[in-house]
């Protein structure tokens, strides 16, 4: 497996990070699933790897692809496309796994492609509109316009919740929203 390792911009430039915080600016890593743009807090990102083969875990929700070996650590890999109710990703070498850490746990997120590092004024982040029946997917933490398009910001701690057996009602609402 050839792993393409991207250096961590956040760690590389503490000065910039500080500046970002001072001005109410936050940095995100944005990535694509299909045509949709998503972003996660750069501070949660540990590294970005090329797609590697995973070992499937039995009897798990479909979006849990399995586990991978990250230098001796066993890390579960989530297929985000599937997590958002858009079917399984047909993973190939062009796909990327973003290794994140949230709530003391590491996880890999399978995405189509990593796009950019975004520096966003937190004031510009809008809340996600609630779905019709009141409950919106709580792992979507906000929407922010970037150029012509918009990017959905994910709340990792909600996305990688323990027990991850998301109630099906909630999942169907995601689909309605999507």
């Amino acid at each position, binding site marked *: 497996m050839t792993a393409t390792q991207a250096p961590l911009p956040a760690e590389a430039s503490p000065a910039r990070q500080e500046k970002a915080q001072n001005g109410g600016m936050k940095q995100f890593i944005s990535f694509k699933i299909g045509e949709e743009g998503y972003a996660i807090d750069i501070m949660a990102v540990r590294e970005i790897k090329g797609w590697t083969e995973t*070992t499937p875990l039995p009897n798990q929700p*479909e979006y849990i692809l399995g*586990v991978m070996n990250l230098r001796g650590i066993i890390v579960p890999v989530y297929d985000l496309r599937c997590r958002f*109710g858009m079917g399984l990703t047909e993973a190939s070498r062009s796909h990327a796994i973003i290794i994140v850490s949230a709530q003391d746990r590491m996880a890999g997120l399978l995405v189509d492609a990593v796009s950019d590092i975004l520096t966003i004024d937190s004031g510009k982040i809008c809340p996600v509109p609630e779905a019709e029946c009141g409950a919106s997917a709580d792992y979507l933490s906000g929407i922010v316009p970037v150029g012509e398009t918009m990017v959905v910001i994910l709340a990792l701690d909600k996305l990688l919740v323990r027990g991850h057996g998301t109630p099906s009602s909630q999942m169907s609402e995601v689909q309605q929203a999507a």
Partner: protein
Amino acid sequence: MSAIAPTLADTERFQATFFEECTELLQDLEERLPSLQAGNIDSEGLNAVFRVVHSIKAGAAAFNFTELVKFAHVFEALLDKLRSDRIQRSAQVFSVIVRGADLLAELVEAARSSRAVPPGLGAGVISELNELLGAPEDAAPAPAAAKAVQEELRHARAYRIVFEPHRELFRHANEPLLLIRELKHLGELETECDTSKLPDLAHLDAEAAYLSFVFHLTTKAPESAIAEVFEFVDQECVLKIEELGAEGDPSGSPATAEAARDAAQSDTAAAAVPSAKGSTSIRVDLARVDRLVNMVGELVITQAMLAQQLSESGGGQRHQWTKGSEELAAQTRQLQECVMAIRMQPVRSVFARMPRLVRDIAGRLGKKIRLVTSGDQTEVDKTVIEELADPITHMIRNAIDHGIEDADTRLAAGKHAEATIELAASQRASNILITIADDGAGIDRAKVLKSAIAKGIVREDQKLGDDEIYALIFAPGFSTAEKVTEISGRGVGMDVVRRNISNIGGRINIHTTPGKGTRFTLVIPLTLAVLDGMLVAAGEEKYILPLSSIVESIRPSRAQVRTISGGMQVAAIRGEYIRLISLHRILNIPGKVPDPWKALVVVIETENGSKAGLVVDELIGQQQVVVKSLLENFDAVRGISGATILGDGRVALILDLEGICALPEHWRADGGADELEPVANAPDGGIESASMPMSVPKRAHAPGAPEIHASA
């Protein structure tokens, strides 16, 4: 000089160390109490108890835990008199000591959590202590108080005190300045400082003590009060206290001399053992050991990878390489064993907490219980030990509250009024066996069933065997207690116990005889870090089976295999019918499910003695694997006890055989991506066919989520 003005962080660190030490000391104390209580303690034992109390007092004084110091001081005084036979050794005294030890532990805990000590805590013990000591005035700890009492009785006298600290003084968080200040409180003080040992700046070690002092003190306080100022440093310095030509009445001096000698004696005794210990063991941060274990784990994997690559490569030099490779394998293995041994600890540290628990709860419930422990030298991995304390505590608590009848009922049943709980540990192969047995009433089968039905855990019409009924006590929310007590009965308990135990790869068995008692057996792997395994292939996937559970592997003939009701297959092997479990089916592995007579059957035996045959495609080979937890970054997965990394860098899952046997066979119907049938009713179907009612998967509804995507 960091020692003079420790930063806040330093203080916190020192405190943490102090409490760590307290925990160890209290454990040591706890271990000695049974022999004390039985009245057969020797002076060696008493000395040890004294040292514990003394060390705690010393540490507590450094951090100004006044309540703790005050009590430890009185307690220490009693122990001191006891060991020098100035107080008769009697049952009453020993009982006060046992309660004193409990109080000491409580005060330490209060100091640790910076709780205020509730007023009147342990008042009974303290007053009894004082009574035994006779003169409570003696027990007043502060030199100032002693001074106040005796001021009128004595005239001022002059002392010459020579104080030459050892180099290490500062390292033990002592500070001469504080001592000087305290001396000054006693009277008129003149201080000479000897700087002759001070090296030039280039050779100065900032953390070493170079200065020594000569004090001229004129005081009305007794010599013992002066000795007390130096109480905590007198193992770390040369100390001479001389009286210079008495200015007043000399009659008091024999007594004070005796007191000073006492103080000196107690301190030398206190110093003797810790220093001896220090030479044979060191305190190492657990994180460092863990790092070492992990590194060696990586090394083992790398070695396995090399060996594999070598065996796959051809070439003329192969023979030479092989020899080297074999040596490397042997050395790696030895290195790993050595490293693992660092983390092995006797279970004593857990067992030692139990006598107090039993005393406590039995006292509160008014039951008489004797706790018999054995095998507390059995060693297990440190990480396992930490996970053992809670379940054992819980099970003992349960045994006392539910298992053991009150004295009248016991007598009526022809039993001894005093009940016995046995707590034993032993090693069996790569497992540790812990049994908790009581001679109480046993588990009431009918009551358990009734309660389980009432709570909706099982349905009324379900047919259950004895084992299945007893296993119900592990169901979440189960409780038979008629009334909820503060000790147990809320129905949170045994399910947590079982989860804790299965988290560390162990299992629980119950044997109960109505009227005779109940025996719980915990079978837990000695270490969580390595496992002797058999690598098997099923479809594209490879799995590790724990070698210790494998009985044999066979390829049955077609005639040996029968399909019986519900699609279950059994194989007749030497007169035994063994249930066949297809790994493909149960783990939902893509690909064709092989027929047992074309594949291999690995016969396994689970801890409760039942056998099963796992149908796999191929046995790849025996291998020691480094166990990695799934829980670190994920949740528990039924049927999987962990994972490892194979020579090629891929992850292989380690199967939890007991879990596998309990998995319902048609998982494929609810978990499979290719199945579109609605799954809402699948978990219910699962219950009926599962071997045990509690084998309903924790996340029975989880597979529901993907189904919705599949159909969308």
